[in-house]
């Protein structure tokens, strides 16, 4: 169920990392909306800025080395201007995040139960017994077998799939409205990945969560998303409902990405690969960042940065060729 008011509004977000040696323009003007109950998949290759965009929503980047501009509004509140208290509530309660590697996201010296209960107590003020009860319910909700025993388990005593389920339980412990997922199934085996994807999809529906799901795997994005945004060199180059993106991608990069992904029935065919490699992000792009690798390049591609234009309702493309 998607309702009309926007849960999250990101406008013209720029993120630049500055160190004495070098400057990286990781995100260069990203704008999108997310409705309550909607799942947005952000698809991109390494260095495309997809994870940086996601982490910006929780302001997880080191403050002294990061320069931001633009706006991130969660239910009307400006995240980029929040003070420490508001930020702590944002991170603990309103927005949760799950990561690729649950083994490093948990503290190895506390049990799963202690870690979930601590979060519940800190943000809801429940007693220790109540918090532990809540932790057990959460483990049950993510379908961990014998949850009462598992509360006392340390992270290393669980398998990868179980740890990822426990992380989802931790993320949902304070009833967030927005769940951020950064490649949560990439480190998992195929038969476990599909279980976790189905779990995320189910919980998203049950709690009417807004979800932003970052991945490099098109198949995974198609499996969970309502809409898909494709990122390249720190910009969204295309945004469309999932069916549109699969059936009729418009941007040459989106088309190339779909064509170069190996799937059923491609045996013996030559793969339609994209030549070259993504650009260095040390410079602010002055034209289309994909132009050097694009086979449809024209003079006006490099003259100015193309704008993200609607080609039809809810389908926007950043390309001079898009009709």
């Amino acid at each position: 169920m998607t309702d009309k008011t926007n849960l999250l509004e990101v406008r013209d977000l720029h993120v630049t990392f500055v160190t004495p040696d070098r400057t990286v323009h990781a995100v260069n003007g990203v704008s999108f909306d997310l409705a309550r109950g909607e799942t947005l998949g952000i698809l991109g290759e390494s260095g495309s800025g997809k994870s940086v965009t996601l982490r910006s929503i929780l302001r997880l980047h080191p403050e002294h080395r990061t320069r931001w501009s633009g706006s991130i509004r969660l239910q009307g509140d400006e995240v980029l201007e929040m003070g420490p208290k508001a930020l702590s509530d944002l991170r603990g309660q309103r927005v949760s995040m799950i990561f690729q590697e649950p083994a490093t996201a948990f503290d190895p010296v506390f049990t799963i139960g202690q870690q979930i209960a601590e979060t519940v107590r800190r943000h809801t003020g429940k007693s220790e017994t109540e918090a532990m009860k809540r932790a057990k319910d959460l483990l049950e909700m993510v379908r961990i077998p014998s949850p009462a025993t598992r509360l006392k388990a340390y992270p290393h005593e669980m398998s990868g799939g179980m740890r990822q389920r426990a992380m989802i339980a931790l993320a949902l412990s304070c009833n967030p409205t927005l769940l951020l997922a950064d490649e949560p199934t990439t480190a998992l085996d195929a038969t476990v990945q599909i279980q976790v994807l189905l779990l995320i999809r189910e919980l998203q529906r049950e709690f009417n969560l807004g979800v932003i799901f970052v991945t490099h795997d098109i198949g995974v994005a198609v499996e969970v998303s309502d809409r898909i945004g494709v990122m390249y060199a720190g910009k969204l180059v295309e945004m469309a409902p999932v069916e549109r993106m699969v059936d009729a991608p418009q941007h040459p990069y989106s088309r190339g990405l779909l064509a170069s992904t190996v799937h059923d029935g491609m045996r013996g065919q030559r793969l339609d690969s994209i030549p070259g490699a993504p650009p260095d992000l040390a410079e602010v792009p002055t034209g289309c960042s994909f132009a050097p690798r694009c086979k449809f390049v024209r003079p006006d591609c490099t003259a100015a940065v193309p704008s993200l234009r609607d080609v039809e309702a809810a389908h926007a493309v950043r390309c001079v060729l898009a009709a």
Partner: protein
Amino acid sequence: MDTLLPIQDRGGPAQPLLLATGLRKHFPVAGGLLGRTTKVVRAVDDLTLSVAKGETLGVVGESGCGKSTVARLLIRLITPDKGTMVLDGDPVDEPHGITVNELRRQVQMVFQDSYASLNPRLTIAETLAFAPRAHGLPAAEARERVRDLLSKVGLDPANYATRYPHELSGGQRQRVNIARALALRPRLIILDEAVSALDKSVEAQVLNMLVDLKTELDLTYVFISHDLNVVQYLSDRVLVMYLGKIVEIGPVEAIYGNPQHPYTRALLSARPSMDPRKRTKEAPIQGDPPNPIDPPSGCRFRTRCPFAEDVCARLEPPLADAGAQAVACHMRVAGSGHSKAVAA
């Protein structure tokens, strides 16, 4: 002196290039009092496989199934506890056979982590010339070989020979690793998750290149990957592993078109659908793969198998012919005692 000419074929096309029989590797786990060995990881157990000349054998399975251990055994980076290997008629590491060094000239390997597999203090040219020089190729010839190798993998020698690994992208580094694997003119290349760390657009470039190199240099590949789509794209035959055992092996069309083992079926239907109108409704199997320390008795898949019966816990199913492929499942053995066993 070895001048590193291409190695001549000996046994003809019918003789397998590599034949491994009864390979076993158990890793002891130190623990308990005084660090005594208390448990063993049964990484690979009595594995027999052959690789035909000119084919690509795909190896798939989840983490901990032993596929990387197989790769390391085939090139003798680790010594098997048991079992024999024969390379084009020559037994490996036996009195009347060939030495491990000779095996490694003919069999080369490409690893997943392109950066960790290159020496950061050597230029690309030094890395590529290292093995040919060690095998006695004169410096001038080695330089010529480096230029030739770089052009083969699509890197301009003038531009890349003097660079260091950190100056290259992941895709370029993996091209260098492939060039290095080709430097001694091997016959068999083992690719252990060689494209898994690459972005999709770069992965496609490298896959195209691997296909071209195979034809051009008359190579044979063992292609190990967790990515079922890539294995299907590249392989002629596919081997499916689960907890150190082969569960199914056969031609790619048979494995993907008509999988017989319940695990192969589950693995294939766990693939994301790529079609938003046909999303996966239910996970094909529950739970994670068990720990390879103390694997289940009998059939190792029985703890996750929807068809498991008493016989599965008691007896280990043999790898038996079932149509075009061979399958290790009691349901495919007539008279095995399984209620769904095929008729005799």
